[in-house]
Every structure is written in C-alpha cells, then in structure tokens.
C-alpha cells in the first residue's frame, strides 16, 4: 500500500463526511484531493498536524465559485522520502455567511493566507489574531473584494487603462 492509500484509509475512518479522491497526472505523480465541510475543517487540520507534525503548508487559495467561496490549502506530508504526499484540502463557505475558523494556532503561516483571503474575497476568519489588511492599500474602499466575481468585486470605474495611442489619437 502506498503512502497516499494508507493516509486516505485513515482519513476515511476518522472523517466519513469528507470527500476523498486520489488523482494521477500524466507523469504518474499522485495527489490527494479532500474536501471537508467547514464544520470539520478545523478538526481536520488538527488531525493533519498530529498525523505529521512536520507537515508543510505550501499555500492557501481562495476562489469565488458562484454561490460559495472555496478555500483550498495545499500541503506536503511525510516528505522525508520522496515522493511525499501532496494534499489539497478544500472547504467551502456560502456567500451569505462566509465564516471559517482560524487555524493559525495549528499552522502559524496560515494567518498570512487568511489575511489575504479576508481582504481579497471577504471570508471572515473567526478568532484570527490579526485581521489587518496585508496587500491592499489602507485607502482601498471597504466592502470591495478584488477577487469576487459578483457585485462586491471591483466596479468598472476602478479599472484604469493607460490607453493605446491609436484610440487616444495621440500618435504623431
């Protein structure tokens, strides 16, 4: 049994509500995709830390998918010998209640990604120790989230284009 399969067995036992899938790309590299409901998101991340205390948190990605916002985390587990387990944990929050628990006490780096998700797409991370903006300037308007595809996204008036001289009729 490969590392991935072993891991997936444990996850299935402990989190029957999670949706687990192993995908393989055309070069034979395998990746585990797990989606968990937000109720078990925090417990799942805790479990990962217990499963491998050196688990490497690579990146978190927030995405507007219509009615909901997806939040995915890419981790690398058991990387002492290659290939490691490449894992994507995905959870989803409805747009009318975009709240997720903060996990920065489990994976300290996650706070940076949570701050980004808060300002870029408007997920609220409950109990996050620092809710200041990270990338957006301080004079950026409240209530506008650049990565939203709906009417909370960037309005047309905020989009600037330096202009093509043909259209500006400025060519000599």
């Amino acid at each position, binding site marked *: 049994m490969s590392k991935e399969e072993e891991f997936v067995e444990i996850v299935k036992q402990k989190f029957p509500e999670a949706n687990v899938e192993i995908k393989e790309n055309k070069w034979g590299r395998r990746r585990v995709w797990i989606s968990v409901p937000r109720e078990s998101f925090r417990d799942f991340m805790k479990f990962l830390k217990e499963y491998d205390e050196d688990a490497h948190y690579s990146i978190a990605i927030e995405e507007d998918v219509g009615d909901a916002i997806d939040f995915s985390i890419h981790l690398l587990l058991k990387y002492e010998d290659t290939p490691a387990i490449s894992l994507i944990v995905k959870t989803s929050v409805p747009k009318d209640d975009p709240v997720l628990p903060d996990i920065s006490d489990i994976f300290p780096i996650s706070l940076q990604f949570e701050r980004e998700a808060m300002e870029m797409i408007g997920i609220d991370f409950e109990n996050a120790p620092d809710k200041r903006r990270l990338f957006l300037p301080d004079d950026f308007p409240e209530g506008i989230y650049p990565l939203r595809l709906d009417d909370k996204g960037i309005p047309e008036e905020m989009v600037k*284009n330096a202009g*093509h*001289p*043909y*259209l500006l009729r*400025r*060519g*000599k």
Partner: protein
Amino acid sequence: MIRLPLLSTVIKNLFKKPATNPFPKTEPVPVPENFRGKIVYNVDKCVGCRMCVTVCPAGVFVYLPEIRKVALWTGRCVFCKQCVDVCPTGALQMSDEFLLASYDKYDSKFIYVTPEEAEEIKKKQEELKKAKAQAKAKKSQ
C-alpha cells in the same frame, strides 16, 4: 590572524585589462542570432486575422475593422515574440533593433498605422475595389 583570501586575486587583477565595453565610444556588444528586438510590421502583408490581438499579453495591437489591419504601439511590447510566431502571413517580424530610448512615449518610432495612415489605406482599398468592379463589368460585356 586576519584572513584576506581575496588579496592575491585582487593584486593579479590589477595587471589585467579592464573587461568592459565603453559604449558609446565603441559598438555595443553584438546581438545573438534570433535576437528579439523591436517589432517590424508590414501592413501590406497583413490579412486582418486578429491572431496577434488575441495572443499579445501587453495590449500592443488595436484591430481596425474598416480596413482589416492592426495599429501597433510597440511602446508597450514586452518582446515575447508570440505575435510573430502566430502571424500566418509573416507580416510581423522581430528586428535586431534595441536602442529604443525616447523622450516621448508616443514617438512615431513606436507606432505603426496612425489614424491618418488608416484613412489613406481605406481610400486605397476603395479605389482598388472600384477598379476591380470595373474590370469585372468590362469582362462580362
């Protein structure tokens, strides 16, 4: 003891020629083959397929539907050569030119097809059309 491991190298280098190219007193370092310099646009070859508009990451092209050509502003070009690779007629080429500094971002050397030139091309195309129509009419007589 103070260690100065670079000292011997420095002393040796003091007796060597400087390895610099004193441009503009000399020619610049020659460019390699297939160097990606300023875009050259041959408006006569262009068939107006709009492939370059689709592929350009920097917004260099504006499509002119009336004359089925494109207007370029290479001031924005990032020299990625994608337009040259995609152009089916070879109307776009990369030159060896790289000394492109200018006082004006709308300098004429950055612009192909101004509104005035577009007007001229339009007139020419119309004349050509008329001539063709006449030739056809003569033939069918």
